[in-house]
């Protein structure tokens, strides 16, 4: 069964239509990359998957987004949805508090108060985000003092702390140096054993390196979707070929 089934999805910002008839099945415990030129709708689609677009005034959708077979736009507790579907943004955005409190923030809001339990969640999340060894002696320090790459991995740890099923990543390495980028890419590949990951990226080499499936978007439509290896070696659509070979975009 697919993790997400997106059926005939159309999305409007007021009178502007940003997504057209999107049909996409996202495989469980795989990395799916969304690629395409700026303004093609890939980040918009990502945000529909945990209803971040609800916060945008005038945003309206038609069609269905099924998570584990349930329509997330019908009778769904949005807080629970966002617990299940975490998000990591382009620019690391740690809260202005300690490393520990950043990671414990989510579990606390979901009612966990026991220190022992929180300690365990913080350690486990930081370990999963491959940053425990670097931060275990700095848990009480302010997270804003960390490097960009560390901040981004902390944000991933924070997302993991509420035990999600899915991680949405919107250009998570575009603000990072090559070494931090490699660490995040390695981490993402580790994480796919336990999580479904959807990543928006402008870096096509990154999509080629880490993703299992890739969807190419253009002007709000999914032009081509399939195994990454196929899409980057033998694209079916000329527009995909032109974009991935740098002929436009």
């Amino acid at each position, binding site marked *: 069964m697919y993790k997400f089934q997106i059926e005939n999805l159309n999305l409007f910002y007021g009178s502007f239509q940003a997504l057209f008839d999107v049909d996409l099945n996202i495989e469980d415990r795989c990395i799916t990359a969304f690629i395409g030129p700026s303004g093609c709708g890939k980040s918009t689609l990502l945000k529909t998957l945990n209803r971040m677009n609800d916060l945008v005034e005038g945003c309206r959708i038609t069609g269905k987004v099924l998570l584990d077979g349930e329509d997330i736009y019908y009778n769904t507790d949005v807080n629970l949805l966002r617990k299940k579907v975490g998000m990591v943004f382009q620019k690391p955005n740690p809260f202005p508090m300690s490393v520990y409190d950043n990671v414990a923030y989510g579990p606390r809001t979901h009612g966990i108060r026991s220190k022992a339990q929180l300690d365990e969640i913080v350690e486990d999340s930081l370990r999963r985000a491959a940053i425990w060894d670097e931060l275990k002696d700095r848990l009480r320090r302010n997270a804003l003092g960390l490097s960009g790459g560390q901040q981004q991995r902390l944000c991933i740890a924070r997302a993991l702390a509420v035990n999600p099923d899915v991680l949405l990543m919107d250009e998570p390495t575009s603000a990072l140096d090559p070494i931090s980028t490699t660490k995040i890419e390695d981490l993402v590949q580790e994480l796919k054993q336990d999580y479904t990951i959807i990543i928006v990226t402008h870096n096509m080499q990154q999509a080629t390196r880490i993703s299992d499936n890739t969807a190419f978007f253009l002007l709000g439509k999914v032009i081509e979707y399939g195994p990454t290896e196929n899409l980057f070696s033998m694209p079916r659509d000329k527009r995909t070929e032109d974009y991935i*070979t740098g002929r436009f975009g």
Partner: protein
Amino acid sequence: MRNKFDVELEALNTDLIEMGSMIETAIASSITALIQRDLHSAERAIEYDNEIDEMERRIERRCLKLLLQQQPVATDLRTISTALKIITDMERIGDQAADISEIVTRLAGEKDLLEIKNLKKMAEATIKMVNQSIDAFVAKDPVLSNEVIAYDDVVDDLFNQSKTELIHAIQTDSRYGEQFVDLLMIAKYFERIGDHAVNIAEWVVFSITGQHKNQKIL
């Protein structure tokens, strides 16, 4: 966008066409040397071998640089990987043209060089295969590539006939045994040149369709 990349791909294509024309000239020279017992043509084919080797190095460098700098995908990836594969076959064709010419040079002093009809036919058939495989690469033509692949059976048949003809010749008059064995080697070289042309044609099909010998390899 991608102006530099396109210019470099065009330069790669030009080099491949030039290498193709070099191996065509090398085989044509070795055939002229064989049929007309023309030592000057034999020397030309042997000299060409070094130039072909140099061209192979140059194309290799171009391809590796493109892989490093451009990280090609899709058609670009298939074109560059095809170039890397076919230059090995082209270089081997150059070697074999030189090998044929060396035998012809050695046979030059012999009096009665046996007329082997099938050997001439093989020479004509293999040069046709090589020319067409290069043409198929230039024109990105899978139909022509498949014609080259199918034509290999003709060359194989001619090789078997030449072999039978030469075995019979050895049995009939063993005084010229060494000469007949040399001619058999030449027949084998032509047969191998045909195989290399098939390899080139198969990679040309891959560069267009993504399939190599009807199998998806990526």
